[in-house]
């Protein structure tokens, strides 16, 4: 698939709906190209009306604190109803690097396989399904956090893409080549400026002197002259003492970091980036001068800066940058002081359409793909290889002594969350190659532990056995529920 084959308005200007409202005729008058819809129920008219007015809807089905759990059947039905309406751009996993997107008390860490594996496995299942119905799935959006903590943006990018490279290289490339786009949430604060006329690259006009009709705008943070003069060599991944954990708080911040890895590690030419939230915070909803190297944001600079940002996307930004859905409709249009001044500029000033070249999603798609090298770790032992941090596969094995009704009564949520393989014959372990590792989750009564160990360990010493001991039906239900609650396949 080529970059110019994605179907959209070619207009980078976009708006995110308020919780329950977006005025489509107003958005059409203000010449929006994107409309972000958060779906709380079956498809409503907003998406259809937006398309009828030449706007491109992006639909995210909302689930409260989904963590890394799979997409549920109701959500799939919602996506289907929007797709049947004609919507093509879809989102699901939203800022998984933030605790507010995880069940209360759940552990989440981009460096932990227990976090990343279910998230990416479930995301791929959803993405492939979206592609199967003719839609475009998003690569999960991330909030910009550059602290090195378990919410750190770069750590999440590395964790998610590293897992996909090591475990699902070709499968992920297939998604890339069939409609994937990257969703980002660049809240850029005051990381933009317009040069003074004749003042040089590092000169910034006062906030109330900027003008969208004139040139000299900078939205390339942290690569703009002010930041690079202040902290030479800073990149979105960091690289300096002042930014040890990266600096993604810019219009292209996390997008640049993701695209660089996709191009270097997965053979990507370019795929779209759509910022499904973000922009310059509407005045009153963010700090006016988060970074004192740059002028503060005023209602005037917000208006001109926002318009300039969209025009910069069309004329200066990389071909893959498709637009921003401003956060959010009520912050712009349902204020005590009426519409923000930027609304007047939206109405007066025609958007600049983006010219998109035919860059292939995969630069080597026509030639045989080169998978990552496989390291054979234990060629002399039969069956699967040793586990290095995580296992490639999980078998669930029901001991012969177990009453299977107990399993069926208790396993639904666990199965929805983790989708393991259910085996009844341990001989299948023999088929696994030595470059794959395995955990067998053995659900058993206590009297069968020794039998299971002697059946597995002497023949396949690399297999880790994860016992779930059951004496009463409630034991199994409790253990599986606990694992689902904390998002841990193996407890």
């Amino acid at each position, binding site marked *: 698939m080529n970059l110019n084959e994605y179907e959209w308005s070619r207009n980078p200007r976009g708006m995110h709906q308020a919780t329950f409202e977006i005025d489509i005729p107003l958005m059409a008058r203000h010449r929006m190209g994107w409309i972000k819809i958060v779906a709380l129920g079956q498809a409503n008219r907003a998406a259809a009306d937006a398309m009828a007015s030449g706007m491109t809807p992006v639909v995210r089905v909302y689930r409260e604190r989904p963590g890394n759990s799979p997409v549920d059947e109701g959500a799939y039905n919602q996506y289907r109803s929007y797709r049947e309406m004609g919507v093509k751009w879809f989102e699901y996993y939203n800022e998984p690097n933030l605790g507010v997107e995880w069940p209360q008390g759940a552990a989440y860490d981009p460096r932990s396989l227990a976090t990343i594996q279910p998230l990416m496995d479930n995301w791929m299942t959803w993405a492939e399904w979206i592609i199967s119905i003719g839609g475009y799935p998003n690569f999960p959006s991330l909030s910009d956090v550059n602290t090195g903590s378990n919410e750190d943006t770069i750590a999440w990018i590395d964790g998610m893409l590293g897992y996909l490279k090591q475990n699902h290289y070709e499968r992920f490339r297939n998604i890339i080549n069939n409609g994937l786009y990257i969703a980002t949430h660049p809240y850029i604060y005051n990381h933009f400026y317009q040069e003074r006329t004749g003042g040089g690259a590092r000169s910034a006009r006062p906030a109330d002197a900027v003008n969208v009709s004139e040139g000299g705008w900078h939205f390339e943070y942290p690569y703009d002259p002010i930041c690079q003069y202040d902290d030479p060599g800073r990149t979105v991944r960091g690289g300096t003492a002042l930014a040890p954990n990266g600096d993604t708080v810019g219009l292209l911040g996390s997008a640049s970091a993701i695209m660089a890895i996709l191009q270097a590690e997965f053979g990507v030419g370019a795929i779209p980036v759509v910022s499904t939230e973000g922009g310059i915070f509407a005045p009153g909803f963010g700090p006016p001068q988060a970074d004192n190297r740059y002028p503060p944001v005023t209602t005037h600079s917000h208006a001109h800066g926002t318009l300039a940002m969209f025009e910069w996307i069309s004329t200066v930004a990389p071909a893959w940058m498709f637009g921003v859905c401003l956060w959010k409709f009520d912050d712009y249009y349902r204020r005590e002081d009426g519409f923000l001044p930027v609304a007047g500029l939206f109405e007066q000033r025609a958007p600049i359409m983006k010219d998109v070249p035919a860059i292939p999603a995969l630069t080597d798609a026509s030639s045989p793909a080169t998978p990552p090298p496989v390291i054979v770790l234990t060629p002399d032992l039969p069956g699967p290889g040793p586990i290095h941090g995580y296992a490639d*596969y999980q078998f669930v094995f029901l001991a012969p002594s177990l009453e299977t009704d107990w399993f069926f009564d208790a396993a639904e949520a666990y199965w929805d969350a983790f989708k393991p393989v259910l085996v009844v014959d341990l001989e299948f372990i023999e088929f696994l190659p030595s470059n794959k590792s395995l955990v067998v989750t053995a659900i058993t009564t206590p009297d069968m532990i020794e039998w299971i160990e002697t059946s597995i360990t002497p023949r396949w010493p690399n297999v880790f056995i994860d016992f779930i001991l059951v004496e009463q039906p409630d034991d199994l239900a409790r253990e599986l529920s606990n694992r689902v609650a904390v998002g841990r396949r193996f407890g």
Partner: protein
Amino acid sequence: MRYHFLYFAPNLSAAWFTQAARRYWQAYRPMVLYDLTFVAYVPLNNQIIITSIARSDSAALIRDQLAQELPHVIHDPLVYDFLDDVQLTLDARVETNQPFGVPVDS
């Protein structure tokens, strides 16, 4: 050797397994999968039967995937849009002792 897999389309919830296929699984004990790549590990000198369960939206995708990637397997497709319907079919297979919906050699 014959290996029987029960494969569920990825977009189906676990209820299609734990509710609809409960009796069927208890009767025939197939290996349950959500990832077809796994089947490729079975040596080719074995007989492989995949009973797939999918809604009409993804059935063709699964059929094509099997034809392209696992042409040696026997495909037993079940295409239903509602959980209750597939349960009726699977339960009927148990009642008639026909794990694949037709009389088969043991």
